[in-house]
């Protein structure tokens, strides 16, 4: 009886020690933005490669279904694009002219980098939002492709988040659709020729809207105005589309305006992303 009692005590003690060690290790390691060690990189890279390879047939079927759904809308899209194509040539010429002008101005002012400069790296999503609480996605490019922590990640529709951890061949992206104020982003609302500055502070999953706060400007903000990044922080270049104004209210202190913004990105449909590298340009 006493032997059994001692054995039980030892088991309880071992379990307590393991739990204690795990708690301490977790406290040290769980950070929003952190460097992965060699072991973590190796496991993450190899397993993500396996998951990516296993996903390929499913991805192919998904793409085919998407393709057939889109075929129905093709004629409408074609008509719309045809009318836009004429304007495109005009815009192209204008962009070239402006780019030349910017380059000349940079040379004359001896500026190496502006807030709109960046190099792009394309990547494919391997898996996303595994588990209910994480709001992350893993992509198939890592430090070997030049990706670093903190880089902005976009789709063809706009900003989706930033890189939080980097392996050799994989990276993790923290999405902006985290429904709490973890990452504040400096944004501007484009109203006519004017820019109104604010801070994107949170995401409301229920309404699918971002909240932009800290707007002291008294100008009227129209619904449908574009919201873009300001480029005032290290990670996000200027002019990346975030969404459109849905409604304007007062903040909780009734002092400044608070703006609800509908994201330009559909978070349910992210397959290919682009990482913006501000360092290499």
């Amino acid at each position, binding site marked *: 009886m006493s032997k059994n009692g001692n054995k039980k005590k030892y088991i309880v003690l071992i379990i307590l020690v393991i739990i204690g060690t795990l708690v301490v290790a977790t406290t040290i390691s769980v950070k929003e933005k952190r460097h992965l060690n060699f072991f973590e990189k190796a496991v993450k890279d190899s397993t993500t490669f396996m998951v990516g390879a*296993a996903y390929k047939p499913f991805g192919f079927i998904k793409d085919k279904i998407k393709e057939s759904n889109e075929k129905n809308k093709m004629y409408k899209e074609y008509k719309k694009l045809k009318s836009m194509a004429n304007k495109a040539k005009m815009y192209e010429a204008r962009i070239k002219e402006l780019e030349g002008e910017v380059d000349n101005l940079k040379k004359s002012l001896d500026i190496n980098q502006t807030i709109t400069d960046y190099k792009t790296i394309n990547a494919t999503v391997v898996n996303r*939002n*595994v588990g*209910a609480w994480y709001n992350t996605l893993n992509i198939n490019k890592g430090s070997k492709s030049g990706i670093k922590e903190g880089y902005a990640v976009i789709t063809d529709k706009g900003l989706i988040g930033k890189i939080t951890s980097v392996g050799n061949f994989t990276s993790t992206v923290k999405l902006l659709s985290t*429904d709490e104020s973890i990452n504040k982003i400096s944004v501007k609302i484009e109203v006519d020729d004017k820019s109104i500055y604010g801070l994107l502070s949170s995401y409301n*999953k229920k309404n699918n809207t971002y909240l932009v706060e800290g707007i002291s400007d008294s100008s009227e903000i129209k619904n449908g105005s574009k919201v873009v990044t300001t480029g005032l922080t290290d990670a996000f270049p200027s002019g990346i589309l975030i969404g459109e104004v849905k409604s304007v209210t007062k903040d909780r202190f009734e002092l400044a305006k608070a703006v609800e913004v509908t994201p330009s990105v559909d*978070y*349910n449909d992210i397959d290919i992303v682009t990482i913006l590298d501000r360092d290499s340009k």
Partner: protein
Amino acid sequence: MIVVVLLISFILEGIVSNLVPTSSLFIPLFSIVSLLVTYPLFNENKIKYLIYSGTLGLLYDLVYTNTPFINTFTLIITALVITFICKFITINKLNLILIILFVLLFNQTINYLLLCLFRYRIFNNATLLEGLYSSLILNVVYSYILYVVIEIINKKRKYKRII
């Protein structure tokens, strides 16, 4: 057999997460489901079961979530709860659904509370509730399918041994 089931479920979780909308009622948690369904295959070897649970949790942390030891910890605790439940109830087609519902709710609650404790997330009742109910339907269906598949494979193995 156990390792294969756990690994397939683990990889399948990553694949399915890419196919279902993020804001839907179908959040896959196949790793936890596979832990419960494979429990009878361990033949009461609790230490082995806990080691497998911890390893699966660690892999989950490293590959999917980047939160080392959170899922290791929650899966070990979940495994302990499963062993406790299975002392009183045997897993069969009928009570599998009830047990899996309880295990999923328990695991997800602990996981969320730990993430809040380590300041990875900020506690919100509505988010917790939403996360809980959105992770039930798909996983209950998967648990049932997995249970039936394992049962069929086990039967075939038994026949082979007899022959």
